[in-house]
């Protein structure tokens, strides 16, 4: 245990002189900055792929004669974006220009009994980290070093960490987001949905969205294709207690009572089977357990579902018929952020089953088979075999999780008598764990138990306040990264190269990983001269080259393995225990979970409280963009959506600022602006996630709106895969003179 508590360092750092460091490694970007053709209006352009969200759209960065980045435009040849970036990508320049960026390495020191950050050189910071990693590894084994990552830096740092002997690598995008979906589809189809999603939206005739607010979440290719589908007259069915933008584009909006979606899904399955509205040949040929399913869903009549969901039984029947009429060109969309109530894998299993009986998997207008280029790694020595795997942190649990469960790692970091599996070092890259992980108290407990916290980021996000060392990473516009090898209808590669040199003292992720690796005695794992040589070698193995990719940005390859869709009568082996699509899941059964999804009731808000729902805005990627000057210009705070009836009851006015208190007495740090709207049900309130930053160094984001994560303290763990269900939190309004409840640290 540490003797001194790791205090959150909010304000300015101490300034030390002499920060320059001779540029070892990366020979900066010089020589790459000259014109590469394709110029318009005196602007030169270089290829990149966007880092503002996981969609990784490829584009061109245009600069004027003074080398100033003017704009980023989508690459026409890229199937992720078809030449059109989303607003975040278009405003991606703001990430580079943001004057609040992390500028120089910082090390936590205690001066006169007070903890402060002191500016350091890269040598000092990296030496410090390497020494600590070595001493901790000597005592506890290298596996006690963990990497949490989101985005492109993870590949470099992950490589370094595996070479060091640790496989403890985790991304909150699994257990806090899409995990239930991947596990549900894996147990059903033996394959996952992937990112970008393999949904054939453009050719779909019926789209069903369950709480999935496409258009507000700007998953670019899917938004584009939804628009194509609207043009072609597709029927859209949206299930959401909130009148989302997608709902407003829908033929059917089902304003469901929150937390009852599984009842609706089961009753749809009931209606389809009872009426014979399913793909009999497909079910016969490809699925396992149809009879058990038929028996199981007999109980789930539309009338039964009506009492739970408040959706009219006739609407349930009519929408089921719409799906059948469109089948197999129908997509019951699996969504993306699916960690809601703790039985999420089961809900997503019901979605997977619905698609299966409609025969949409592997069919045009349903789910296609994506393909990627076989892209070789640059040869390096084999990684040492770790003594223990990160999954031992939650041994005996979550066996079906196909990725590492971040909250499992976080929990195991907190010393306990039940577990000897302690983690001692966290490297945190590109993910603001304070906003990403629910139940902040636990995260803080874990942080206090650590020997070393290193945060590698572009922005002074909250987690940097708890770091021992902060390393300023440069933005995607200032660096090379691994080639984007994407799985899509057509396999493609995309190049990211620096459009300009790293600003301030920031450095690219590959350089940071390599410099740290060298200090850890792992130079043999970094045999390349620089990223250019690294990428060029890889590209040459598939018949391209760095020179070619600099010119074209995106290269398409022909498909080699199978076709986009199943052929008529094709024999197909699914990667499940039975080789079939498992309507009845043998995996679930083996693990002691219901092999067919069973409806369970969830908590509803107590009187005077409202369910806290949260979502996305098209111009922001959670907390990541909340300080981006171009994007805050479009939206600089979140608002609290309140139904007019509720507003009346509480005397709330539009634009009034108000705090919230949750069921556990936690009061929000900041206030939020009230937006009275008919678009929300009376039993819930809604806000966009990613606001309410409490680090003053984020000058545009600080104190703007409420951070929903701090109000999410009732976390429902999904026993199947460890996901953190976050939608069982209830809030009420706090007025100025009301001091009830415990204030969280401001």
């Amino acid at each position, binding site marked *: 245990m540490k003797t001194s508590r790791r205090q959150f360092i909010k304000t300015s750092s101490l300034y030390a002189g002499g920060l320059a460091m001779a540029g070892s490694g990366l020979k900066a970007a010089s020589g790459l900055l000259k014109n590469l053709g394709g110029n318009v209006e005196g602007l030169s352009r270089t290829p990149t792929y966007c880092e503002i969200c996981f969609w990784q759209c490829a584009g061109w960065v245009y600069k004027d004669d003074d080398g100033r980045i003017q704009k*980023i435009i989508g690459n026409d040849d890229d199937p992720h974006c078809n030449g059109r970036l989303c607003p975040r990508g*278009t405003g991606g320049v703001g990430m580079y220009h943001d004057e609040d960026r992390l500028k120089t390495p910082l090390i936590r020191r205690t001066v006169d009994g007070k903890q402060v950050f002191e500016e350091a050189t890269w040598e000092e910071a990296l030496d410090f980290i390497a020494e600590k990693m070595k001493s901790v590894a000597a005592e506890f084994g290298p596996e006690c070093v963990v990497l949490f990552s989101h985005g492109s830096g993870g590949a470099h740092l992950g490589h370094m960490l595996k070479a060091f002997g640790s496989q403890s690598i985790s991304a909150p995008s699994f257990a806090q987001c899409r995990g239930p979906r991947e596990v549900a589809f894996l147990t059903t189809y033996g394959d996952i949905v992937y990112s970008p999603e393999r949904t054939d939206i453009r050719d779909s005739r019926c789209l069903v969205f369950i709480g999935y607010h496409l258009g507000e979440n700007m998953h670019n290719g899917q938004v584009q294709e939804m628009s194509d589908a609207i043009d072609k007259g597709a029927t859209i069915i949206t299930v959401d207690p909130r009148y989302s*933008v997608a709902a*407003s584009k829908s033929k059917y*909006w089902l304003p469901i009572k929150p937390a009852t979606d599984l009842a609706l899904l089961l009753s749809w399955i009931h209606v389809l089977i009872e009426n014979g509205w399913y793909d009999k040949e497909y079910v016969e040929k490809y699925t396992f357990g149809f009879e058990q399913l038929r028996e199981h869903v007999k109980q789930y009549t539309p009338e039964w579902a009506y009492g739970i969901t408040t959706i009219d039984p006739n609407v349930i029947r009519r929408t089921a018929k719409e799906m059948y009429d469109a089948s197999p060109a129908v997509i019951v969309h699996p969504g993306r952020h699916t960690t809601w109530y703790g039985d999420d894998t089961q809900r997503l299993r019901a979605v997977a089953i619905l698609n299966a009986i409609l025969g949409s998997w592997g069919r045009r207008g349903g789910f296609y088979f994506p393909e990627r280029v076989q892209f070789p790694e640059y040869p390096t020595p084999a990684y040492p075999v770790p003594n223990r795997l990160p999954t031992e942190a939650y041994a005996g649990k979550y066996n079906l999780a196909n990725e590492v469960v971040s909250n499992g790692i976080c929990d195991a970091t907190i010393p306990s008598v039940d577990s000897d599996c302690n983690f001692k070092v966290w490297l945190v890259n590109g993910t603001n764990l304070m906003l990403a992980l629910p139940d902040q108290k636990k995260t803080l407990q874990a942080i206090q138990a650590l020997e070393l916290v290193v945060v590698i980021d572009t922005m002074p996000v909250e987690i940097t306040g708890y770091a021992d060392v902060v390393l300023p990473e440069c933005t995607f516009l200032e660096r090379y990264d691994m080639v984007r090898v994407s799985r899509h209808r057509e396999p493609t590669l995309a190049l990211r190269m620096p459009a300009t040199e790293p600003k301030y003292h920031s450095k690219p992720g590959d350089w940071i990983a390599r410099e740290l690796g060298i200090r850890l005695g792992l130079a043999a794992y970094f045999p390349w001269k620089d990223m250019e040589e690294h990428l060029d070698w890889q590209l040459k193995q598939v018949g391209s080259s760095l020179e070619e990719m600099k010119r074209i940005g995106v290269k398409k390859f022909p498909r080699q393995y199978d076709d986009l869709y199943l052929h008529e009568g094709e024999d197909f082996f699914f990667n499940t225990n039975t080789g079939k699509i498992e309507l009845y899941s043998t995996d679930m059964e083996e693990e002691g979970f219901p092999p067919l999804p069973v409806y369970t009731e969830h908590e509803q808000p107590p009187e005077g409280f409202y369910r806290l729902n949260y979502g996305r805005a098209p*111009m922001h990627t959670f907390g990541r963009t909340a300080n981006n000057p*171009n994007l805050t210009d479009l939206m600089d705070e979140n608002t609290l959506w309140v139904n007019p009836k509720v507003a009346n009851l509480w005397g709330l006015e539009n634009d009034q600022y108000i705090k919230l208190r949750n069921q556990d007495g936690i009061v929000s740090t900041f206030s939020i602006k009230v937006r009275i709207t*008919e*678009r929300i049900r009376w039993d819930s309130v809604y806000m966009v996630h990613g606001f309410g930053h409490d680090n003053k160094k984020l000058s545009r984001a600080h104190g703007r709106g409420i951070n929903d994560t701090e109000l999410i303290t009732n976390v429902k763990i999904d026993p199947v895969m460890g996901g953190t269900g976050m939608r069982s939190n209830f809030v009420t309004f706090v007025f100025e003179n009301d001091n009830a409840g415990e204030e969280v640290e401001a």
Partner: protein
Amino acid sequence: MRYAMAVDTKKCVGCSDCVVACQTENNVPIGYCRDWIVEVTDGTYPQLEIEIRSERCNHCENAPCVRCCPTGASHYSDGGTVLVKKYHCIGCGACIASCPYDARFPHPEGYVDKCTFCLDNRVKKGMDPACVSVCPTKCLYFGDLDDPRSPVSQILKKRKYKTLIPEAGTKPHLYFLI
């Protein structure tokens, strides 16, 4: 030649990409915009409708802003686009007051600015305006009303549409597909 734009309110998701793309294309300073999003909600829960519109200058055929401009800075240009010669503009703001659509703003450099349909920097070079070419839902259509094959003429032939504040008599060239 009469340039015009149509906005499909059935497809627009209100993402504001058209707004950022215009800002970066035309160096519009942060805090200002030449185009913007309007969202109108109608009805009570759960009988609701929303109309989402990407709005900008209507490039009116009968433009009060041009009529009232004392210096001639506001003028009709190629294809009927309404433009402002920034070196002639004295920033008096008469045009801002006269525009029924609130399409103009005082640029911090002292002149009045607004949407140009990207006439000089893009359209004359054969490209679409920045907002049209970035829109992820492809809900913006641009072109010459006098050319029956232009995207805007084609879509107006097929779909129902409306213009904003027709009673102002400005003859707008911005159409909303409904």
